[in-house]
């Protein structure tokens, strides 16, 4: 029985690890400037903790195999040196791993969350609601209109609660259902929520940030590749959570300008 256990644990371990090693399922290609640091951090953690995983499981398998030896003459043995070497090993090994990961990782975190957005960032407002994202560009005047929750009306397409009757700045605001951005230009999003908590997640950008009702949360990034990607909600927001998404279209600067002109014309 013990040998069977050892074999099963070993097979499970090797099988599990092989899919990680082969990258059968893996992160999509990164398209942001901050992503490589996160990917690097993840690879590093994968190696370190992968070795711990392999070591732990295989050691368990080995010891169980040995312990199933039914030879009556065999005497029980205490782990060489008792608990102390194990405790020391755990503290040192895991301690080093922790310190390295924290040190390296805090840089990756800082690049995403602690560095302020570039001054020339393109500002886009995001409104999350049950169950869609809407995006707002300032329009030709470069000014965003004020937000008035009492004016929100999905039926007439006023998703942000603009008040164009009284607010001139709001009149030319462009509100669309897809996030269209120029490539290689820093983007600064301001996240608002209309109703409950949502989250902005683009796997390719390595960006995830919750929307918290009542507060505005800035997110900044720079996309390095053109293409069409999905923005999905990762914070449980109600019945349509699974269906809450929008597309991110990263365009060349020229295409973007043309697109924006077209929107402003409407």
């Amino acid at each position, binding site marked *: 029985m013990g040998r069977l256990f050892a074999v099963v644990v070993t097979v499970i371990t090797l099988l599990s690890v092989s899919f990680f090693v082969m990258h059968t399922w893996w992160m999509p290609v990164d398209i942001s400037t901050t992503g490589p640091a996160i990917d690097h951090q993840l690879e590093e953690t994968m190696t370190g903790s992968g070795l711990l995983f392999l070591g732990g499981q295989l050691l368990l398998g080995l010891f169980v195999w040995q*312990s199933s030896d039914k030879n009556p003459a065999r005497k029980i043995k205490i782990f060489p040196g008792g608990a102390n070497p194990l405790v020391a090993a755990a503290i040192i090994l895991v301690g080093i791993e922790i310190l390295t990961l924290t040190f390296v990782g805090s840089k990756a975190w800082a690049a995403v969350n602690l560095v302020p957005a570039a001054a020339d960032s393109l500002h886009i407002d995001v409104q999350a609601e049950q169950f869609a994202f809407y995006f707002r560009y300032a329009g030709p005047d470069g000014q965003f209109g004020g937000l008035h929750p009492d004016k929100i009306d999905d039926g007439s397409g006023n998703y942000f609660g603009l008040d164009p009757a009284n607010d001139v700045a709001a009149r030319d605001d462009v509100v669309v259902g897809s996030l269209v951005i120029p490539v290689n230009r820093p983007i600064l999003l301001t996240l608002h929520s209309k109703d409950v908590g949502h989250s902005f997640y683009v796997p390719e950008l390595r960006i995830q940030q919750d929307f918290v009702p009542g507060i505005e949360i800035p997110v900044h990034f720079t996309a390095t590749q053109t293409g069409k990607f999905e923005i999905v909600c990762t914070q449980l927001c109600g019945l349509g959570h699974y*269906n809450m998404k929008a597309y991110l279209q990263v365009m060349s600067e020229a295409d973007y300008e043309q697109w924006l002109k077209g929107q402003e014309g409407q």
Partner: protein
Amino acid sequence: MHETSASHAAHQHTAPTSFIRKHVFSLDHKVIGKQYYDLALVAVFIGMGLSWLMRIHLGWPAWPIPLLDKLSAVGAPGGVMTPEYYLSLMTMHGTIMVFFVLTNAPFSAFGNYFLPIQIGAEDMAFPRFNMMSFWTIFVAFIVMMTAFFVTDGPPIAGWTSYAPLSAVGGDAGPGMRLGQTLWAVSIAIFCISSLLGALNFIATTLDLRTKGMSLARMPLSTWAWFVTAVIALLAFAALLPATILLILDRTAGTSFFIPAGLVLSDKLQPHSGGSPLLWQHLFWFFGHPEVYIAILPSIGIVSHIIPVFARKPLLGPRAAIGCIMATGFLSYMVWGHHMFVSGMSPFSANLFSVPTLFITIPMTILTLLLIGSVYGAKMRFTAASLFCLGFISVFISGGISGFFLAQPSIDIYLHATYFVVAHFHFVMAVASIFGVFAGTYFWFPKMFGRMMNEGLGKLHFWLTFIGVYCVFMPMHYLGLAGNVRRYSAFTDDYLIPLIPVHKFITVAALLTGAAQFIFLFNLIWSRFKGPIASENPWEATTLEWSTTSPPPFDNFGGRHMVVYHGADEYGVQSSDGKDYIMQTSPEKVPAR
């Protein structure tokens, strides 16, 4: 010291004779422990049934599930599950499993039954509170179940019930009317029950240890229950205020968690200024320690059982106790790691990340001590010991992924994906349940006076062990591919290629779940038909094996136990030719 009169006078209560006092409103910790166990058993099968329904829906969303429309015609018209009913089932699955199974079974059930016996006490310190604690949890459970039968179904806000989704009421969606209120009330009642329970555990451990039962001689299981009780006392004391405030927001129009200017279902909500993050802070201040409430008792149970079957003492029991206490302490400093992407100050991420990573140190030590205890053992392979070994394996698997999620930078990518689902199911759910299985196979003879069927037990182990890996290991891959959790269907372009993996998981989950019926059958059948158990069938040393199976009403039949040794005197040559020395044996322990 052995005067019978004194012992009778001191005993809390005499054995009851009526059925109701004996089996229903019993003050006997053993009966109460079994009641907790049975409640957890009912709950776990309900919870598992819910997970089956969810898995079937995830694999084959358009497939009408037979009879599901009978359970809820609105939630599953024609048997096809609506998105909100999926979330209802998910919420109930999480809540039932975390509160009524993982908190109940390893801690309240086994703790109630064996903590007093293992320290040589006749009962808990406050038997009446003990009874109240069970019956309040029973009420909490009934209230929670009622949510299935209200008009628009159970709540859909998940077991974490984030505000304002959980706080604004019916405008947030189906299930958020009465269902969510029932949820909050049930959890508040649960908190009270857990506080009463924890109080009893702490006072009992501190005051009722028998002669010679120094703290250091307590079995590791008792240690774990004691530390868990301390954690639970503070954790549930923090959750209770949170649920009270939530109930007030929902029913009295206050604005603790609901900010101004929210528009739900086209209606401007009449609230102002509340803080959604406040709920998250309060909830996770409870929620993270809750993880340890679920896992520490199982660690204790496994550490208690492994020496029995390894026939050698646990490696470094002092270090293990230290680790359990360190974990309990650190568990209060790490709640923010659930909130790395929540919008709280990004500067606090590192503050929470470092202690989170530090927790891996005591956990790694504990794991290594368990592995080291297997080294050089003469292992007796029984269902109980197999589940202990399985526990070590799944605990490693679940713990490792913690390295990823503890780091804010990686959590940006992995947060709210199936990677998280895999992590907490392995480390908290599966590991904890493995501890419960081990405890059940190990203690069943003591609790019911009959042995469980070993063959079925081993079959149950193999199917479960391989099964849980098939279910939860692939979830890591899904998470790496960015598969978001809490989705009732996968309609996103990048998720569609992952559906075959979900189908595989569904099949594995159905099979693994089916294997649990072997356990259920074994449990019921053995209760009546199992071979009669001797006093000490596993040749174990601790006090519960020094009394009859099952123990008499006062646990030791009027005897006052005196303890002479620690719990782990295995692998020694005793004077009567055995390889272990009971805790109650006055014999000197020879050198190994």
